[in-house]
């Protein structure tokens, strides 16, 4: 019986993984890989601009929550490089299946920020048409978006279309059964999927080491495909690595896991009080790794940073914040009847009757 020796040799495989070779021991793009990735100064500036806008809008999200205009906000501070780097790495025809915190991805993908926030204003459960921007809804039931992305990717393969799918989650989500089952499906069906884990070290109050046994990137080997841990505070690294993994997927290379490390600098959401469970000092080593400062340093090193750019960017971010607020505050409240309309494409008569009664009782002031 030679089965025992038949192992696919995961370490050999890792060594043979050209994507792994793109990063150094700190998970940062090597100089060679940076050259090969060929991200122009203009493109890098675009990434920076998107990150700066994302950060400003994120802050505005916090403000809006404090002002009572939205019910909840889950800050993305610390995730800018991952979300902007990864979302922009996907081709237009590619798909992204995000999780609730992927606001940065949403705006990079073209979702109107003010519209995105109507979700947290309680006007709806999800304000965009996924097919319009090839961007799924922000899933809240942790980990449960994974099978959607993998299923979609299997569909792309069945359709023989060169489409790659990015599925996103936090590191806490890797503890869920759905995460594992999907990883296994991805491997078994060799689905064209890039599995992105935004490891911000915390799942609400639970730190990484109490959440995850072993290491996330290491788990990919157990599913027969490569996994790579990268510096999630460096937008260029995330962008280049995810782009390479997506290309590989489109070429039929199968799934790839990217674990991007960063830190959740803010509370889990505006409802959270991190002083109960972590020290400010915990964040200290990460402060030096701010995604925006990192990107700025890269631009400066390239000589692609100047005051005019900085100013334009700040202005663009400010404008975006104003627009977001305005769009949000102008968003009309939903007609309650829509709650009935959205459930089924082919609603049962009984539901139509229920709606009619509901609406007429509203109109007669009955239900209120």
């Amino acid at each position, binding site marked *: 019986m030679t089965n025992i020796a038949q192992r696919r040799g995961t370490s050999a495989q890792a060594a043979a993984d050209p994507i792994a070779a793109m990063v150094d021991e700190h998970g940062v793009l090597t100089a060679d890989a940076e050259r090969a990735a060929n991200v122009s100064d203009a493109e890098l500036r675009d990434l920076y601009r998107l990150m700066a806008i994302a950060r400003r809008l994120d802050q505005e999200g916090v403000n809006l929550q404090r002002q009572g205009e939205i019910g909840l906000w889950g800050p993305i501070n610390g995730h800018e490089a991952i979300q902007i780097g990864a979302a922009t790495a996907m081709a237009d025809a590619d798909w992204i299946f995000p999780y609730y915190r992927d606001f940065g991805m949403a705006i990079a993908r073209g979702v109107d920020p003010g519209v995105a926030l109507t979700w947290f204003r309680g006007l709806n459960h999800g304000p965009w048409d996924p097919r319009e921007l090839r961007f799924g809804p922000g899933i809240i039931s942790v980990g449960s978006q994974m099978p*959607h992305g993998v299923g979609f990717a299997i569909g792309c393969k069945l359709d023989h279309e060169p489409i790659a799918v990015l599925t996103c989650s936090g590191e806490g989500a890797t503890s869920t059964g759905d995460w594992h089952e999907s990883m296994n*499906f991805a491997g078994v069906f060799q689905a064209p999927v890039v599995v992105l884990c935004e490891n911000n070290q915390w799942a609400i109050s639970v730190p990484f080491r109490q959440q995850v046994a072993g290491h996330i990137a290491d788990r990919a080997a157990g599913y027969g495909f490569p996994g790579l841990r990268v510096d999630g505070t460096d937008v260029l690294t995330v962008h280049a690595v995810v782009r390479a993994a997506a290309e590989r997927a489109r070429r039929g290379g199968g799934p790839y896991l990217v674990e991007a490390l960063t830190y959740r600098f803010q509370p889990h959401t505006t409802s959270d009080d991190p002083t109960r469970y972590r020290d400010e000092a915990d964040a200290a080593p990460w402060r030096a790794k701010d995604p925006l400062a990192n990107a700025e340093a890269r631009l400066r090193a390239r000589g692609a940073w100047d005051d005019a750019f900085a100013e334009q960017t700040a202005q663009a971010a400010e404008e975006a914040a104003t627009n977001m607020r305005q769009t949000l505050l102008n968003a009309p409240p939903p007609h309650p009847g829509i709650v009935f309309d959205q459930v089924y494409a082919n609603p049962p008569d009984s539901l139509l009757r229920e709606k009619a009664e509901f609406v007429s009782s509203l109109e007669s002031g009955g239900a209120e």
Partner: protein
Amino acid sequence: MTATTVTLGKALNLALHDALASDPRVLVYGEDIGKLGGVFRITDGLQAEFGPERVFDTPLAESTIAGISVGLAIKGFRPVAEMQFDAFSYPAFNQITSNLAKYRTKTGGTCNMPVVIRIPYGGGIGAVEHHSESPESYYAHTAGLKVVSPATPADAYALLTAAIQDPDPVIFLEPKARYYQRQELTLPLPPEPLGRARIARPGSDATIIAYGPTVAVALAAAEGAAREGISLEVVDLRSLSPLDMDTLTASVRKTRRAVVVHEAPVFMGLGAEIAARLMHDLFDVLAAPIERVGSATVPYPPARVEKLFLPDADRVLEAVDRIREY
């Protein structure tokens, strides 16, 4: 288009076959549904005919079997996923209730979910635990799903066809103890619109409301009652969510008495909703309270004693006696 005698299981197989043949976007998948043809052979021959890209085995993971159907539906497929047995749909409960049932709402009404989850259900087959459950209450209570169960080969074909064509998620409950029940059919039958009950046997003295595996029980009871000169009307629900209250109300308005029969425990079973509604809507019409016949409030019992817990014609007739004597 000649008449043939088919079993309920075969009718399901033919419905899947014809759906695969007529719509290239239909996919069939689940555990052991490929070469094996499913543990009940409902998918027999489909992989051989339509190939392993359209009919495929999955790993043993019900949550993700349900979960990929969401992604595949967005990609424009019409997934028909099988859960091997009733209780093995429970690992998929979160995907079904939190995602499948709510995805259209979550996407502002933009993403339809034309997904069918097929589940063989019910007992009486002498099986070990977890293989004989009646999970319909769980799904019927979940807004966003449609829940269907056929009781005859004709309906098996026509309802499964309609379920696959429907743009919304359908939990399709197959009465596994009736897979071998036969009927002469002229196929293909037109799809049977979801949501409509069927008068399985007309009658006038009382209405027996049943679905899936208990329709045969109700018919046997009606047969027995007829011998005693009692005329029972049997209504086969077919759709468990929504309920076809028009048909139910019309029948019970006429008979003024009703019994609901299902295998699930009476407590919080579908009979509760039906009885509550009929007694509410026909409060002044009813001559007796609505009776419910079902299982006791216990986990599904071991095979040796299961028959004592399942509804049978005698228990239905006792209930009929109670309401006729009321």
